[in-house]
Each structure stands twice: as C-alpha cells, then as structure tokens.
C-alpha cells in the first residue's frame, strides 16, 4: 500500500503548516518567558505537578468538565467535539495497527484509512466503533449548528461575535465530519464494509447511484473532506481554535506556578490564545446584562488584545469584578490580563511624582493594632465611628494610620494601569506601618485589604479585614453583641469575596446578631455594586443603574437591613436602595450596648 492519493495533498499541506506555526509560536513564547519563570518550570517538571497537569488536561481540554458545570448540553457539545475527535484519532490509530500490525504508516494513511483499506478483510468491530464515534462527534456538530440558531437552549443568552479567521475555521470545522461521513459511506458503497452509519448510507448510495456516479461522488467527497481538514488546519493557529493546543501548555505552566503579572509577559500569550471564545464570560457581565454594552467583555478584550487591536475604551471598560473569571472554563486570569493591558497603555514611570510623600506622617495614637481606614472609609464616617467603638469595647489600643488624612493604598492607581506610581504609595505605607511597629493591621476596605495582601511586603504584620477582626473578637468573648430577631441580608463585595476569598467571616458575624437571608445571587456569583474603582469608562447614570439592579435583588429578600463590608459598596448600593445600607461594623457597634 502506498498510502497516497492526490486528494491527500490539502490535508498534508494543512497539517504541515499547522504544526510548523504551532511549534514556532510555542517556541517563541517559551523562549521569551522571564528567566525566573523558566527556572520555575524546570524545577516543576520532576514533581507531582506533572501528572496532575496531565490529569487536568484530560479533564478540561478533552472532557471539558468546567463547561458541564455551566450547562450540561453545552458541555456535551464541547466534549463530543473535542473528546470525540480525539477518540476518532486514537481508535483510528489502533485500527490501523490492528489491520497492518506495527509498521510505519504516514499520517494521511491513518486519517484516510477507510479509503486505503478497501482491499483488506473487514473487521466489523472497528467499523462499528468508528461509526459510533463518528455519530458522537456528529451529534456535537449538530448541537453547534443548533446553538447558532438558538443559543438559549444551551444556557447562553449571548454568543460571541466572531472575526473572519474564525468564520473560515468554523465553517471548515462544521463540514469536516459530515464530509467524512459522505466520503466513508461512498467508499463503503463501492467496496462494502462500514457499520450502521457509513455502511447503511453507503448501501443507500449504491442503491440510488450508478457505479460511475458513485465513483465520482467518492473522489469528490474525499477531496472535500481533505480540503476541509486542510483549510481548518491552516486557519487554526490564527483563529479561536488555537485554544485547542494552547490550553495544554497553559495547564502545565499554571501547575508549575507560572503566572501573569502586572507587567505584560510572554505568559500572557498562553492565556490569551487559550481562550476558545466560548462566550461563557458574556452572560455574567453586568455591563452586558444591565447596561447592554456588548463590546468589552473578556472574550472581546482577549480577542482584541490577541490581534493587536485593543483600544483603551475596551481595556478601561471593565469593573474587574471577576464574575467572568469565576466562570471561565479555561480559568484564564482575566483580571490580571486586563490590568497589564492598562499598564501597557498608561503606565508612565515618573520618578518625580509624589515627592510630597517624603517625611509625611499624619498618624495618631499608638498600639500594636493598626487601623487603616482607606480613602473610601474616610468618606463613610459612620464606619469609622463604629470601628472606634469596637476597638474601645474590645480594649485594643489602636494606632490610626490615616484618620487625619493619609495616603491611598495604591490599588486604584494600579487598577488604572499606573503601576509604577502605585508602587510609591505602597512603599510609603509599608514604611509607615513598620515605623510604628504594629503587628496587626486592620482595614475596613476590601480594596486596601487586597493590595495589602497581594502587593505589599508586610512580613510580620498580620493583615485583617474588619470582618475577620470582629469575628475573632466575638469568638474570643471580647465583644458581646446582642442577638435579636432582625433579618439581615448581605452583599458580597467583589474585592472581599471573589477578590480575597472572604465569604464566611462576615456571614458568621451577622449570624451572631440576627438572622441572615441570602439574595438570589450570592457568594462567588454576587453582583458588583457598579461603582468599582477599576472602571473609569461608564458614567454616573450607568453606575446608578447597576446599583439599582443590585439593590433590588437585596431588597427582594425582605430583609430589614442590607449589610455589606466595603465602604464603596455601601455608598454605591445606598444610592440605588430604598432602605439604608449599613457597613458590617455599624450593625455590630449598634449592638454592643
């Protein structure tokens, strides 16, 4: 057997182009990784992380477990295409071995085996299995067609709008398997073989077509099949389907501990190109659901960034609430990518900035416990007063970092892309904390909390959100708030919940005061108040619209008091709510006699 026919050419060329481009891309990205990241990878390879990564690749890239969690039908669609195709290749390879023994067969020999195997004695088991797998994949293709028409049925309200390269690849992909079915059936019609799918269709062909007609159909169908494959392979590295192969190295790199940071790096390539543009990130975005803005969501942001057409309007228009990242089946670090895009667009290293910080110290009091109100808490004096009462009741001596005005934590600057300027704030505040020798740092602002925990070097100083601190006091019996029949509801601030993983502490504090009723979307799915400092693109009216939507959900619980644990959330939701919105510290302070 020669394993060559002219129709194989489109496939061979396509596959060669694809593998070359893939290898070049991966090579360049890996080569450009910072040295430290390369070392991290080398150290990670001989550890448990490698088999773990293999497991994750199977679970996610092939079986798409995360998508099943979004919607079972959508998960099935992705799985049947990915896993089904994989099985067709794997079983196809076994089939070749079963027929020919272990000998070298060129790639096209495996792929077009049915065409070349006509002279061999048939093995019905393989015919059956291969037909079954083809049916499995075809069902996924059918669902994909169906999804174009009726996306809601697959749990998506909006689907992604695609670029040209995607359309070419997508059209080719849609025809690959139907073409394969016709081609294999035509061959079966001429030479026998095949099972319930290709066999039956082949029988039907030979009953309705003349032999020369069927031979023409066979040639045409194999050419078409091979061309679809070829076109798909050539378009693949330049389209969304690049994700198929990018997700694999991404999983490994992530397992080894390589991360994207506030400055763009080569790791970002692995992340942006691992996005399949599945569009799952569109629905959770409140900019879409409340404001009907549909050009800025993560899927579009990544697409624009990948093709070098990212505009500041898109990069800036995001609340960085993290709701999309929470659902992304590829677990792309969406907020960090958005952040380093902003850095690339806006960061201006200017050494002379913030000279006025030198020697500044407006702090007051003294104690091992430091309290950092943060800009936003200074705008919500009730929170500040409540904290004062709580510290007093607990008998903790407190050093007030910024009650008389202080320096911002730096996170708003960082979120706006001015990462170098933000470092100046961070250095200033770190020095201030060290100078006053505190061992615990309490803040009532989740925005500050996040930056203290992630960007500051505060070894030896324990950083606590006030919800954690208050809960500790209650558990230690140092704070004895009265419990009554009040019904509270709680809004999870993004930076506290999704941002810092603090969901239970505020809830435990509320339960010590009264009854807690949860709104419909809560914890990981909690909405953003709309006033996030990360977004400088939407206007006041838009912020208010989001706040109203969030407040309506909270009020629908029938709770008497809306509680949150972020000064900005309090202000934002307060604008949209009919009833007052309180900070956690306020409701505690009211109940400590």
């Amino acid at each position, binding site marked *: 057997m020669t394993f060559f026919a002219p129709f194989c050419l489109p496939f061979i060329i396509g596959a060669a182009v694809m593998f070359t481009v893939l290898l070049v891309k991966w090579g360049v990205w890996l080569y450009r990784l910072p040295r430290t990241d390369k070392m991290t990878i080398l150290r990670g390879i001989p550890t448990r992380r490698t088999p773990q990564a293999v497991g994750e690749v199977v679970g996610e890239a092939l079986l798409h477990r995360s998508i099943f969690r979004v919607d079972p039908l959508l998960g099935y669609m992705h799985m049947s295409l990915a896993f089904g195709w994989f099985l067709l290749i794997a079983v196809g390879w076994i089939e070749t071995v079963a027929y020919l023994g272990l000998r070298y067969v060129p790639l096209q020999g495996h792929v077009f085996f049915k065409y070349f195997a006509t002279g061999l004695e048939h093995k019905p088991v393989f015919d059956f299995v291969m037909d079954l797998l083809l049916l499995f994949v075809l069902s996924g293709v059918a669902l994909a067609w169906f999804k174009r028409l009726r996306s809601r049925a697959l749990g998506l309200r909006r689907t992604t709008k695609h670029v040209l390269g995607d359309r070419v690849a997508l059209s080719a992909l849609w025809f690959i398997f139907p073409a394969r079915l016709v081609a294999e059936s035509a061959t079966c019609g001429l030479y026998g073989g095949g099972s319930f799918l290709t066999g039956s269709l082949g029988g039907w062909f030979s009953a309705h077509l003349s032999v020369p007609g069927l031979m023409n159909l066979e040639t045409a169908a194999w050419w078409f099949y091979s061309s679809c494959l070829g076109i798909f392979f050539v378009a693949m590295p330049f389209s969304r389907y690049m994700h198929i192969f990018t997700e694999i190295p991404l999983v490994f790199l992530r397992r080894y501990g390589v991360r994207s940071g506030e400055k763009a790096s080569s790791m970002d390539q692995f992340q942006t190109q691992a996005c399949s543009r599945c569009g799952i990130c569109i629905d959770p975005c409140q900019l879409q659901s409340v404001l009907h803005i549909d050009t800025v969501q993560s899927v579009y942001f990544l697409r624009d960034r990948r093709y070098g057409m990212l505009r*500041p309007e898109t990069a800036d228009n995001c609340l960085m609430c993290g709701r999309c990242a929470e659902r992304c089946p590829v677990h792309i670090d969406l907020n960090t990518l958005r952040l380093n895009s902003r850095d690339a667009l*806006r960061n*201006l290293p*200017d050494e002379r*900035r*913030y000279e*006025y*910080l030198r020697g*500044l110290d*407006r702090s007051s009091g003294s104690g091992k416990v430091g309290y950092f109100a943060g*800009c*936003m808490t*200074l*705008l919500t004096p009730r929170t500040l007063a409540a904290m004062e009462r709580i510290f007093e009741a607990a008998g903790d001596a407190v050093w007030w970092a910024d009650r008389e*005005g*202080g*320096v*911002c934590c*730096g996170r*708003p*600057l960082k979120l*706006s892309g*001015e990462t170098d300027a933000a470092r100046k*704030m961070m250095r200033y505040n770190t020095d201030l904390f060290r100078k006053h020798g505190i061992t615990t740092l309490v803040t009532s602002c989740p925005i500050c909390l996040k930056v203290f925990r992630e960007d500051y070097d505060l070894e030896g100083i324990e950083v606590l959100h006030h919800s954690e601190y208050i809960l500790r006091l209650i558990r230690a019996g140092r704070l004895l708030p009265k419990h009554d029949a009040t019904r509270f509801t709680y809004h999870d601030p993004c930076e506290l919940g999704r941002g810092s993983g603090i969901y239970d502490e505020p809830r435990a504090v509320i339960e010590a005061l009264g009854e807690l009723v949860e709104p419909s979307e809560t914890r990981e799915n909690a909405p953003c108040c709309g*006033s996030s*400092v990360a977004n*400088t*693109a*939407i*206007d*006041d*009216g838009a912020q208010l619209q989001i706040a109203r939507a969030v407040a309506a959900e909270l009020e629908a619980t029938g709770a008497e008091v809306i509680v949150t644990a972020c000064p*900005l959330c309090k*202000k934002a939701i307060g604008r949209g709510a009919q009833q007052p919105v309180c900070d956690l510290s306020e409701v505690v302070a009211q109940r400590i006699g």
Partner: protein
Amino acid sequence: MATINFGYTISKPRAIDMDRNNLRKSDEILREMPELQACIGCGSCTAVCTAGNLTSFNFRRVHTLIRRGEYQGAYEEMNKCMLCGKCRLVCPRGINTRGVAMLIKRKLGDNRS
C-alpha cells in the same frame, strides 16, 4: 502707611483672556468628557481630595483652569492625584472625575496618545 495684617490676604486680581488662550487641548478634553461642562464649581471634589488634604493640590482649580485654556503647571499638579476616586463619589453633578483626572494627564503630559 503700614498695612494692617488681618491674618489673610486677597488674591491679586487676575483676568483670563479666552480669546488669547489656545483652547485646542481644552476642546479635546471636553469632547471626550462632555460631562465636565456640567461642573458647577462647587468644590466638593477639592474638599474631600486625598492629595489635596496633604498638599496644595486643588482639583477644582486645575480642571477649571484647563477648561479656560490655562495649562501651565496643570500636568504637574494633576500628577499629585492618587486616583483614589473620592471626588467622584461626592460630585453633585455625577461627573466622572476620576476619568477626568486620567484624561487631563493623557492630554497634557503623556505624549504617547
């Protein structure tokens, strides 16, 4: 005659000649952020300003002067802003003042855009 010191002074009278000032940058800024025209000059942004609390930086003054075509020193002043966003929360006209701060810096200093 010796002047009596009352403990305060009066600013020197000063006129801005809008016909002589170059309003190109100002127009650009207002085109991108038209809502700034709704400013009533109340000064709330300055009153709560984190940077203004620590320095002589006066946000209202900076954005008002820029709108009148007076750019001198404005970029350096604006760079004192920490982008904390307090001003935006108190502005009675709902102006996206944080966006204004970033826009001013982009238009006046950063030549890359």
